Structure formats: C-alpha cells, structure tokens
C-alpha cells in the first residue's frame, strides 16, 4: 500500500512534467525555476538540518565499543573499533562512511529445531547498499561535466574507467547498471522480507522510486534512440549554475523528467531520512573516542541534583554504626 502510494506520487510527477513541458511556461518552470529552487532548498535545508542537530550538545561520551579498549600496555587496543584517539576516530568514521563497516557485520539469525539459533552471513544488504551509494556517487560526479567548462581531466578519467569494458555504443557505464541493480535489490528486499515490509514507511519506498525514475530516464537518454543533444543539456546545466538560464529547444520530455526527478529528490532530501548523509558524521556512538577515563567529557547542562550527603547519611545511621563499632565523623549522641 505504502509502496503503491509512493509509486503513484512519482508517476504523477512524471506525468505532470511530461504534460507541462509541451508549453513554453512549463519548460521554463521545469527547466530553470524548479531546478534552481531545488538546489537552493537542498543546500539551505541540509545546512539548517545540521545546525539544528548541532544546537544540541553531546552531553555524554557514549561511544559504542566494538573492539578491545586501550588499557594495559601489553593488551592490544583496537584503535578502529574502540578508538583511543582522534586518529582512531577518523579511521573508524572513514571505514563507516566509505565501506559501511557496521553493516558489514550483518548476520541473519535463524531458529532451527533443537532449538538451535544459527547465525548466517547476510552481507547482501551491505553489498547492495555499498554498490548503490558508490555508483550513485560516481554517476553524480560524472554529471559535473554538464555543469563545468572546461571539463577537468579527472572527470574524463573517471568516465573512462566507468566505461572500461567498452561495451556498446555509446559505451555502457558500469555504474548505471550497478545502480539500477542495487536499488532493485533494495526494493525487492523491502517488499519480500516480511519484517522489513512491516516496518517500512511510504518514505522508505519513495526515494527508491524517485531514484529509479531518475536513473531510468537517464539511461533512456543515453542508450536509446530517445537520445538528446547533450551539448544542449550542458547549456541548460551550465546556465543554472552560472545564473544564466537557457532552455534549448531540442530538449524533450525524457530530459525534463530526468531533471524533475533530480529536483524532487533534492527538494525532498533535507526533510526525509536521506539526511543520514550528514547524520552519519554526527552519530555520537561512532564519532567519539573511547577515552572516557582519560579525558573528562564536559556536559554543558550538568545541573545540580539532590543527593544524600555523607553527613545526612551518618546522622541517620549513627546509632547503629556506633553499636557496630564503625568509624564515625561526628561521635555524638543523635537525638
């Protein structure tokens, strides 16, 4: 139901775009105003989100330790899983951000007769997640060639590597295939795993469909006869980032669908779970060293609380303590 709803929303946006770009007003809106607004809202929205998080302090150092702490000199500390210093934290965050270290641990528990709980490998999620994020990143960076002039050499090298196998013409980008395969897996997993389907929200399907539509429209433009004149695409793209908007006439519906899917994704980003892109850097269980007993962590709102002082305590128990011959601070008869 939630999946269907998300699919319908994406379909409606696609349809709306297709209809609108047959008018010149529609072309201006979907070709310049919407993308420009989307970029602005994305940037401001993400910064707003990060600042919203950052306005709350981290009152306690609650590192999750996944390896041996630093203690005695002859016990080897695992600096990447229980960082003892900032370098370790950097390493741990790098592993987390670039290689999804924690997800790599994933197992699947199964209850067999006996009863016996067995834990199998379940790294498909890790693999698909990693494949999706990396290929999306490469595709994203590849697209910079539409926005900049002259195209820097490293983008050309990246393209060349991406098309390394020289399959078809234009040469097939491996990342295009990986991206589509990965989100298909992630979608199917969400639908066919009963637990996952049970806990999923519309907001879990929506980005999958959105990115799916974005990728498919892109693939259509590159690999099919609905191809566009990419020099015109570049004129439009460069126009957006240099504030010189132009909407070349040759660009058709497929291109506008592609652009609109991207715009909607950018608009949706700061208000959705996709903020995990920034949030992963701010996660207090991962981004702090396990040096609690070495350096005191300061809590800015560490307010005083009512305690039971030793004096009050001794006053209450002086008689029994005296009878038991225990040392006292004030050896007086209590009232």
């Amino acid at each position, binding site marked *: 139901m939630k999946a269907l709803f998300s699919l319908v929303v994406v379909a409606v946006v696609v349809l709306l775009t297709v209809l609108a770009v047959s008018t010149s007003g529609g072309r201006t809106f979907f070709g310049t105003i919407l993308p420009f607004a989307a970029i602005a809202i994305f940037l401001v929205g993400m910064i707003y989100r990060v600042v919203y998080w950052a306005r*709350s302090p981290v009152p306690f150092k609650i590192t999750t*330790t996944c390896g041996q*702490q630093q*203690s005695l000199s002859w016990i080897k500390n695992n600096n990447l899983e229980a960082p003892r210093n900032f370098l370790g934290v950097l390493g741990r965050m790098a592993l987390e951000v670039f290689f999804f270290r924690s997800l790599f641990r994933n197992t699947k528990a199964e209850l067999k007769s006996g009863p016996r709980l067995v834990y199998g490998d379940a790294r498909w*999620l890790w693999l698909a997640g990693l494949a999706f994020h990396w290929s999306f990143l490469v595709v994203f960076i590849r697209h910079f060639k539409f926005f900049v002039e002259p195209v820097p050499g490293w983008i050309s090298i990246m393209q060349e590597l991406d098309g390394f196998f020289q399959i078809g013409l234009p040469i097939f980008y491996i990342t295009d295939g990986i991206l589509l395969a990965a989100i298909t897996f992630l979608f199917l997993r969400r639908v066919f795993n009963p637990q996952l389907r049970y806990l999923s929200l519309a907001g879990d399907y929506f980005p999958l469909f959105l990115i799916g539509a974005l990728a498919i429209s892109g693939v259509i433009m590159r690999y099919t006869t609905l191809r566009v004149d990419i020099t015109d695409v570049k004129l439009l793209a460069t126009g957006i980032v240099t504030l010189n908007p132009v909407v070349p006439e040759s660009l058709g519906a497929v291109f506008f669908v592609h652009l609109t899917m991207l715009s909607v994704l950018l608009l949706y980003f700061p*208000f959705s779970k996709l903020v995990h892109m920034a*949030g992963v850097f*701010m996660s207090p269980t991962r981004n702090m060293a396990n040096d*609690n007993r*070495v350096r005191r962590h300061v809590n800015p709102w560490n307010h005083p609380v009512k305690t039971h002082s030793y004096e009050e305590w001794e006053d209450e128990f002086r008689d029994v303590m005296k009878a038991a011959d225990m040392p006292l601070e004030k050896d007086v008869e209590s009232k």
Partner: protein
Amino acid sequence: MAESKPKPEKLASVDYRPPSKSWMDVPPEIRLGTFNWAANPANAKYLDLPHVRKWQPTDEDWKLPDNWQQIVLEGLADRLQKYRSLKVFMDICVRCGACADKCHFFLGSGDPKNMPVLRAELLRSVYRRDFTTAGKILGKLAGARPLTPQVIKEWFLYFYQCTECRRCSVFCPYGIDTAEITMMGRELLNSIGLGIDWITTPAANCFRTGNHLGIQPHGFKDSIDFAVDELEEITGVRVEAPINKKGAEILFVSPSADYFASPHYYTLLGYLQLFHEIGLDYTWSAYASEGGNFGLFHSSDMMKRLNAKVYAEAKRLGVKWILGGECGHMWRVLHQYMDTMNGPADFLEQPVSPITGTRFDHARSTKMVHICEFTSDLIANGKIKLDKSRNDNVKVTFHDSCNPARAMGLFDEPRYCIDHACNHFYEMPENTIREQTFCCGSGSGIGTDENFEMRMRGGFPRANAVQYVHDKHGVNMLACICAIDKATLPPLLEFWVPEVEVCGVHELIGNALIMKGETRTTDLRGEPLPGVAEEADATDSVAASDGEEVSKDV
C-alpha cells in the same frame, strides 16, 4: 500471585511472522510474564518523583495526570535540546532492518515491536507528528501518530522490554543506539509517574542506605565480617576487610549483590583473598556500598544522584584512587558518565598499582580502575601465584556482559584472568561473544519474577550459545563480570541449560590463588578442591603467573 511458569518447549517455538495489521493499529498486550509491576508509591515519594500514585499496568485506567500529554511533549522537546543523540537518532534511521534480528527480545519473542527499529519508531512516530514538518502535514503517511494513552501503554511495555544492551548499535550503519532511545522513553514515562518498582525501589534504597538492597551500615559490616569468617574456615587464612577506613590508599566499590546474593558471594570471597594476598591497603565503604546504579535505568538525574556517593566518599576517606568490582551497568556509569556528571576528581591521584607500580594511564582522569584490569596486571607481573588445576572441576566459558563489552571494550582483561586461573576454557560462537555478546535478558532493571517469560525469551540467544559449548565441550560453568548476570543467568540457565552454573571471574581467581599459610580442602563453594590432594607433587609445576597463554578452543 500464582503464576504458571512457561515451559522451554513452548518458548522455543517462536513465530516471527508479523501481524497483518499495521503496527500502529496493534494495541499493546499487557500480559503477565511480560511486564513489570509499577513503582511502590512510598519509594517513589521518597525520591521526590513526580505524579506518584497507586496504579498497576493491568489497570485499564493508568490515572495519568491531567496534562500528561503536555508533560510528555515538553519533556521530549527538552530532551531534544539536551541530547544531540536523540535528535540525530530520530532523524536518520533509514529502516534498513539490519538491527531487527540482532535484538535478543525479538529473537526470543518474534514480536516485531521488539525489533530495535520499531522500538525506536514508537517514539519517532510521536516526534514526527509534533516536531517535523512532514509529520505535521502528512500525518500517518509520514509515519507520524498522535500521542494517545495507548501509545503510552505501548511505550511502557516495550521500553521495559529493552535491556539497553546496545547490541543493535553495533550493527547499525549509523550507530543508532536503542539504549539511548529507551533511556529517553523511560525518562518520559517517569515524568508522568510510570516507573517500575524493580528500578524505583532499589534506587530509593540506594539513595537512603547506600545500596540497592537497603542494607544499613551495620548490616553491611555484618555481611563483610561474615565473609571474612567464612573465608577463614575455607582457607585457614584470616583476612582483613576494613570499612570506612580513612587514609587507605584505595577505595573498593562493588555491587551490593556481591555481599548479599549467590553466586556473587563467592566472587566477594575471591576479592577478599586477593586483596589480602597482595597486602593491598584498601577500604570498603558503607556509604558507597553500591557500585551498581539503578538510576541509569530511570533517568540521567537519578543516575547522577546515586553515583555522587562514589567520588564524595573517595574524597572524604582521602584515598588515592578507586577500584571497581565486577559489575556491568555499574561500569557503564563509571566509564561513560561518572567523570562527566560528578567529576572532575581532581582530589584523587592517577591510579598506580601499589603492587606492580603500573600506572593506569587509561584511567588518569576518572581515577577508577576495573578489577579485571587490576588483576590481569598483577598476573602479568607475576605478583600472585595461581594453581589452574584447582579449577579442574569446571569447564568454563565466558559471557561478555553488555556494558563492559559495548560501552568499555573490556574483552581481553577478563579472558586473561580466566586463562591464568583455569585449564579448561572454551569460547562460545563468535556471533555471541565480545562486541556481539547477547544480553542475559534481564538487565536494566527488568529482572523481575512477574517478567519471567520475557526474561526467558530474551535470554534465549545467550542460553542457546551456552548450550552449544555445553554440548560440544562439556562446559559446566559460565563465568561473567556482572552482578545482574550473576543474579539472572542462573534461573535462565536452569530454564534452558540446567547443567551449567554461573560464577564470577574472581571466584575462579580465588579458587586458583595460592595463599601463604593456607590450609584448603574445598573451593569457595565448599566442594572438594581439585589439585589439593596431589598438592605435594604439584607444587613445583604450579602454573604461577608466567604469562603463559592457554590455547583457546573455540
């Protein structure tokens, strides 16, 4: 209340299929065996808790205060401002489901609301509705829902079906820590007078007398004196156990169960033996006679209120530093909260072992050292003599307690102690130990009789791993370094693996320790001490602390 305890066969068949209705439409089922009784009003009052009243979870009407919604929502807003963790964890979950089958309560119950992600959604759904734009506009479609009495009942059920063990946080790609969410949920519940008795009463006891069990100073002294007497009977050695001794070098703080419960008691005997043998200048405290801290399971303020005694007492007694006994959540508080809450401990000195001269650099700010760190340093420096064969009657496996594992990274120190105290040590499967260790199922204040079924379900993954090494290697002793473990693993194992007993690491040390002038024929439990009969010819080959590693059969 007469309860029929469930049978293992019944609990072992878990139905993991989620209901057909959306989780928001499934009402919480308050069923005996799966919840905890409400706080005793007298004890709640003693702690000045808000909205104290007589009520029970089984009541239809929980008599919430008139403005309960306002209290909860303002409380949530307040905590969002105080905790970045809460804000970030509310916003960034992608519901990938990696955490789902990592929770012992989900594995044991199959209840989808025990998947960490859904447990968090219980709170997140309310957050969305009142604190996010999407939730305000789209409502249920965005996963938002209004705060109703039913939501509160759901929170009460499921935030007390989480032991704050943090296993899910190890697997989460963003490190989302359900313990953090459960702690916030419990604070909010407590703000409208919905606490449970097994947390409130120990906290009240601890606040008043100094320990969870409510033992008064003279009773505390009796217990320690009794242990000294009994130790003399077992070993023939009279040890000293000073209490509230000013000017001692070290303050020793341990969970109160060590001197009042079994099998904790044998660990206490182990400490006493060890401290005597190395001639440690230390003292117990009757005021800080509790290292554990049920305040952690209540609220950060309560944690701070109870924890304050440790530093205060160290200062009053004029000790140089503090040594801490075997306890799990106690070490979460000591390692991650104490210095921040009640520090800086600038009146103490950086801990240095008076026996080996080792400087404990890793504790130079908090000035508190774990007993396993202390003991393994003694062993490594050859300061104590251990006869491993005296533990030959046991085949040991080690249960990493959640908090020392995932909030400290204390893995190799206890293993080093065990390796040098016994000959037969076998690790459980790797998905169930170290940072992936499974909780006993009864931590965080929910180890009650009325919650028995849920505890057996939650403890099932742990027990099942014990079963594995029991079947494979004949393991008959589960060593651990946590007072809650020692209290709740015995009934758990009796339920699932009746042939395995539970002990502390320092019970093993105590049994293996060769003391000057000892005359021992039994171990600390009064069973015949292996190796003693052959002692005459065994003295030469005593496995003294020579740093020799025992090969681990995994």
